[in-house]
């Protein structure tokens, strides 16, 4: 109820498919001119140096310096020759529009090659997407919990104060962007001003906390000290020191 999580998540469901993003590394083969006999000889020589290294590696043909190569037939031939040498060709990059067309006919995909190409493409389209308007500053929203906060529960007031009418058990966590008010005993952890508000304070009827934190500065129960007031206290930051003071 307080955590707002759904228990329905515990029931496993079987999805028919999943789509996930994936990045991987491919090899780019830079051609200079048409793939003639000399090219294949040089390629053979290179592959023989590391016989297994390129086996079935995904490979892209870079056509930046291969201007004449713009017929589907040429690309089909080249692809067949490369695949015969166990190179898994799947696309081209840096091609002219004619080469891209030829690649599509040859069953290869045309990849945008590198950063320069991407920028060129944007400028060619002539319009950059408008930057999204800055989100309106959110209204502060306080959160009131009228039950004890139990061990294992986390209550988070992300845009304001958190008020707990009841105790916060050991093993529970109360977190707020603003102040935390506990009308009961604080036995768990309380973290106020978590977005960096160092003027946030923690108030509680009885203090038995595992951890107290304001704007990231914290003290654990171990270093609270025996002379720390334990009833009707406030906790606040004074400079870099977390002070615990009786309200009486």
């Amino acid at each position, binding site marked *: 109820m307080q955590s707002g999580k759904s*228990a329905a998540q515990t029931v496993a469901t079987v999805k028919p498919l999943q789509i996930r993003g994936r990045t991987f590394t491919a090899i780019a083969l830079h051609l200079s001119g048409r793939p003639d006999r000399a090219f294949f000889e040089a390629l053979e020589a290179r592959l023989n140096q590391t016989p297994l290294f390129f086996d079935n590696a995904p490979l892209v043909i870079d056509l930046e310096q291969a201007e004449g190569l713009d017929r589907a037939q040429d690309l089909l031939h080249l692809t067949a020759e490369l695949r015969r040498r166990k190179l898994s060709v799947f696309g081209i990059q840096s091609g002219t529009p004619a080469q891209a067309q030829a690649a599509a006919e040859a069953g290869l995909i045309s990849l945008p090659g590198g950063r320069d190409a991407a920028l060129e493409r944007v400028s060619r389209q002539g319009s950059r997407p408008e930057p999204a308007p800055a989100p309106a500053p959110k209204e502060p929203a306080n959160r009131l919990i009228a039950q004890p906060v139990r061990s294992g529960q986390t209550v988070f007031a992300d845009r304001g104060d958190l008020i707990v009418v009841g*105790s916060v058990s*050991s093993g529970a966590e109360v977190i707020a962007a603003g102040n935390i008010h506990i009308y009961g005993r604080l036995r768990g952890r309380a973290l106020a001003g978590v977005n960096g508000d160092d003027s946030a304070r923690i108030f509680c009827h009885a203090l038995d906390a595992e951890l107290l934190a304001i704007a990231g500065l914290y003290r654990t129960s171990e270093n609270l000290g025996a002379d720390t007031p334990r009833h009707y206290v406030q906790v606040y930051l004074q400079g870099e020191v977390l002070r615990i003071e009786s309200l009486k």
Partner: protein
Amino acid sequence: MSKVIVVTSGKGGVGKTTSSAAIGAGLAMRGHKTAVIDFDVGLRNLDMIMGCERRVVFDFINVIQGDAKLKQALIKDRRLENLYVLPTSQTRDKDALTKEGVKKVLDELREEFDYIVCDSPAGIERGAHLAMYYADEAVVVTNPEVSSVRDSDRVLGLLNSKTALAEKGDGSAVKAQLLLTRFDQTRSANGDMMSVEDVLEILAIPLLGIIPESTSVLKASNEGTPVSLDEKSPAGKAYIDAVGRLVGEQIEMRVNPGDQRRGFFQRLLGRTA
């Protein structure tokens, strides 16, 4: 209208199964038709504590999976007219429990029984979650000891958020009450054990009963007799009182019912647990 009561604790070994058996028997003694279900799949204990382990043919999992009818799996108690046990499987694990399966069985039991007592396994995983999921009320079994109290607190949080009633979101909640077991007044007074007040202050739920630490509990378990059938023992009396409160009677809380009759030497020597 029938009620589903889960007996739960989080921590193991605090007396959930003993309490389930005693509460089930106590309800049946009062004339309520009662079924006790063992949710501890794989660690079948309830049937032993209730003394019917040699009569188990079909179990809860068989019923969930449609291999047996509910009537075939329910075991009628030989001592009490209104008491039935639905044992669990020793050979399966908790994955055999499904939300839909548990709902189906509970719905069927609700048609016939006044009270359905669900004996939860320890922990807060699948078995414990499903045992509490459809409950109307909860009996949280706690020992007067810090780790048990903290685990009970965790379970209370789950009862407030991960049950069918809580998920309705209309403010309804599982009514949870505390059953403090293995309580030893002498040790509590000495400060060796937490006091009733300390436990209540942390858990902040109504107290259903205090069961004194007693040799009769272990003896009853070994004999396969629910403790509440032993009306002479302090623990049996305490369970009978707790069951009375569970059905809504006002019964004065006695830390150790029947304590007045202790002999001079017993008083002189203190209580031996």
